[in-house]
């Protein structure tokens, strides 16, 4: 294996031949380089897309800090090299290496991938291959690192089951320590032993210890353990209290997508929008205090020198002390050159007041997400915002000096018709007309219309994706009617991109072979336009005798066993099904802060809630005392 010095020497010969060589050299302020020989356990954390996107990922940053705080472990980073760099690395025999010490990935004990979205899967395979590590778990032995993965898309880990040794389901802050401890404890042991120890950790799923059988119709009969001591169902891990947010953000030496500090103000969402996977799988809602957010933001801005601060959550307006927070932030940063972003605001004029207090640059545009434009559709997706609220809010935005409003919609919601899509057109036109009345002809509207993909662990997991023909017809309608107006900008998702997302998020274990073949056919960077989509993926389905439409365009039976049935985000299937039924009847479920609908979080995490009562969580308190076990256990070996 190459030494770091050899890697660096080889790099010097190729770096001037690639675009943005600064992506591949590290050396950033706040990156952490620990003594290689003193750390017993070495972890390479990988965001499988280019540096420009991955370096600002907060999830990986949290894990980087958690591991590097330990005396006995170190964490370094790697990203996917862009096409030009990959070609030269392969030509010159340079394996993928970490930015901190330039050690090849294969020298690490653990490689941890974050997989926040499905279109990173082929990149993960490519990265393993570039690192000289067998792509399939079954082909690895004791000389190879343990490959773990986490992130939102792993709520259905099955399509990647053949490539990842162990998945961490849910939140990573605590489980990463358990994983590191096991790796340390089992050093030198057989791989099987290490994996069995990992499988004992709550929230860890080791796919090789499970087997799936299928029905004649191709649906899953059951996925069950093949060993006695692994859990039937893997429950996601959560932290009872959000740990202090990271404040030492890595400051890249080149321009990247997001040059900013991000502070998570709240995790989870109580809104219950039925299309939203994040809202379902990140429950319960836990808030940070205003003081903690403001202090962390201040420390992070000072330590980075960034010009931008983002206060992150799934629904900022629902943060209990949002007014206090905005006041405190604007006071603390008064007179400093800082743009503050507060995304995911509710569509109401209060939101405009909030943004005004933050002295937001009005040039940036004001973003709102109605998601649907007809009353029927809004009931179905459980995001009910009357037209009038949208008109009043956008009018307010224009009249207070923003010239651009961005509205996010989705098409392809269950049972959507052309009339529902027409409603998007009508709403956009009204927004512009009303805007012109208060601010003249300079007003602009950007309509971002993406295509809905029904996701696992949501109330819509039973529904089929809209057909390609329907989507094209709906997009044609939007283009025909909206692009005539020079003040309106329209963006949309290519149907093949949505299809790919659907295959990968809804697939079963058989999809692993398709992913492998697609990668062999040249698929990578599937989230990019440069990626090879249809020419790589369709032959891969064919090769393995699988029908793409089986995964995308099929309504699931009500009693269907899902490929992800044995993985749970602690929101019960019954609850999701009831919510799905409610959607069919156009019934709305209100914010669960107002009324607990017993989604399943509290029974699963009753002990955590009992130990952390009060305001921190937005679920009701658990009143019952913990059940005492007063059976005397026989002592083994007596």
């Amino acid at each position, binding site marked *: 294996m190459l030494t770091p010095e050899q890697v660096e020497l080889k790099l010097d010969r190729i770096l001037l031949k690639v675009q943005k060589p*600064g992506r591949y050299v590290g050396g950033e302020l706040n990156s952490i380089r620990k003594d290689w020989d003193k750390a017993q356990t070495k972890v390479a954390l990988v965001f499988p897309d280019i540096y420009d996107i991955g370096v600002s990922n907060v999830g990986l940053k949290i894990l980087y800090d958690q591991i590097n705080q330990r005396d006995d472990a170190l964490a370094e980073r790697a990203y996917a090299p862009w096409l030009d760099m990959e070609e030269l690395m392969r030509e010159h025999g340079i394996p993928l290496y970490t930015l901190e010490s330039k050690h090849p990935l294969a020298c690490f004990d653990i490689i941890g991938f974050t997989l926040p979205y499905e279109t990173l899967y082929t990149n993960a395979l490519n990265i393993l291959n570039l690192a000289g590590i067998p792509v399939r778990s079954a082909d690895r032995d004791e000389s190879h690192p343990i490959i773990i993965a986490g992130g939102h898309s792993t709520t259905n880990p099955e399509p990647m089951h053949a490539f990842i040794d162990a998945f961490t389901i849910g939140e990573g802050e605590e489980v990463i320590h358990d994983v590191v401890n096991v790796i340390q404890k089992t050093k030198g042991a057989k791989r099987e032993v290490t994996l069995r120890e990992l499988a004992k950790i709550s929230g860890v799923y080791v796919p090789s210890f499970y087997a799936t059988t299928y029905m004649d119709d191709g649906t899953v009969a059951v996925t069950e353990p093949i060993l006695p001591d692994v859990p039937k169902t893997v429950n996601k891990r959560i932290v009872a209290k959000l740990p202090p947010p990271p404040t030492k953000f890595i400051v890249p030496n080149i321009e990247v997508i997001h040059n900013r500090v991000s502070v998570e103000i709240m995790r989870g969402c109580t809104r219950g929008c039925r299309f939203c996977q994040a809202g379902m799988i990140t429950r319960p809602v836990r808030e940070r205090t205003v003081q903690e957010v403001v202090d962390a933001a201040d420390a992070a801005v000072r330590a980075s020198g960034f010009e931008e601060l983002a206060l992150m959550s799934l629904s900022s307006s629902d943060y209990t002390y949002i007014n206090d927070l905005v006041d405190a932030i604007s006071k603390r940063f008064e007179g400093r050159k800082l743009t503050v972003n507060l995304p995911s605001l509710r569509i109401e004029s209060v939101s405009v007041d909030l943004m005004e207090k933050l002295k937001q640059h009005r040039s940036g545009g004001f973003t709102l997400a109605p998601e649907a434009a007809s009353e029927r559709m809004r009931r179905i997706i459980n995001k009910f915002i009357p037209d009038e609220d949208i008109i009043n809010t956008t009018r307010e935005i224009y009249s207070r000096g923003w010239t651009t409003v961005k509205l996010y919609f989705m098409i392809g919601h269950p049972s959507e018709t052309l009339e529902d899509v027409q409603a998007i057109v009508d709403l956009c036109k009204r927004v512009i007309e009303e805007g012109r009345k208060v601010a003249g002809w300079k007003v602009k509207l950007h309509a971002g219309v993406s295509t809905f993909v029904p996701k696992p662990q949501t109330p819509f997991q039973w529904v089929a994706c809209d057909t390609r023909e329907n989507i094209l017809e709906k997009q044609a309608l939007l283009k025909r009617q909206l692009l005539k107006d020079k003040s309106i900008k329209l963006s949309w998702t290519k149907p093949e991109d949505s299809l790919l997302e659907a295959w990968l998020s809804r697939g079963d274990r058989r999809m692993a072979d398709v992913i492998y073949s697609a990668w062999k056919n040249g698929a990578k960077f599937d989230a990019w336009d440069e990626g090879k989509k249809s020419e790589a993926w369709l032959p891969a389905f064919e090769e393995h005798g699988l029908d793409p439409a089986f995964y995308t365009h099929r309504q699931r039976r009500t009693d269907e066993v899902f490929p992800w049935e044995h993985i749970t985000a602690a929101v019960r299937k019954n609850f999701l099904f009831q919510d799905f039924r409610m959607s069919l009847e156009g019934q709305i479920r209100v914010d669960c802060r107002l009324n607990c609908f017993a989604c399943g979080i509290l029974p699963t995490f009753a002990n955590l809630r009992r130990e952390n009562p009060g305001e921190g969580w937005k679920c009701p308190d658990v009143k019952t005392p913990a059940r005492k076990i007063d059976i005397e256990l026989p002592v083994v070996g007596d």
Partner: protein
Amino acid sequence: MRVRITFSKQGALRYTGHLDLHRLWERALRRADLPISYSQGFHPQPKISLAAALPLGFASRAEVLDVRLNEDFPVEDISSRLKESLPPDIQVLGVESVDERAPALQTQVLSAAYEVYLTEPIDGAELTRKVEALMMSESVIRERRGKTYDLRPLIEMLSVVTEASGKVWLRMTLAARDGATGRPEEVLNALDILPEYTRVERTRLIFQK
């Protein structure tokens, strides 16, 4: 106050270009709590100017920049604050206060000195012959971006250094005036050395007195 900072740029920072370096300094000064002056107007620009762009991939132990601050600080104070706020591959070598009315830094650069280390073994005698031939030539016509130009007058000094160990490297001083800038990789090309088999370090910027 107008401050002149001399700094080194090594390691990973060799791959940070001129514009990114500007941004890097803006952030570093902000982290150090040194208030930069900004230009007026709709898009205020920080008043930072770098003496001479360093080509991507080259190291330097002699970069120079001027920055205007809104307040006065003792130079030692500036230097110690910056130490904490810069990435590891940039080191402050000197800080001095400059007359506000002094001419713009970029207009004062005359030439730049470089050392070139060879990462592949090379025949020293052969290299010396090539250097001598190059320096004896009246003109060395080369093409760059579709235009021909004469490289020879841009080379002020070029010599081969042979260490006692037998290791061979090059030293050169090239013109760096507006519209007349010699590039080390062009000289290396003229000597049949592939730039990717070298490590170039800028060692000095020579200013007008």
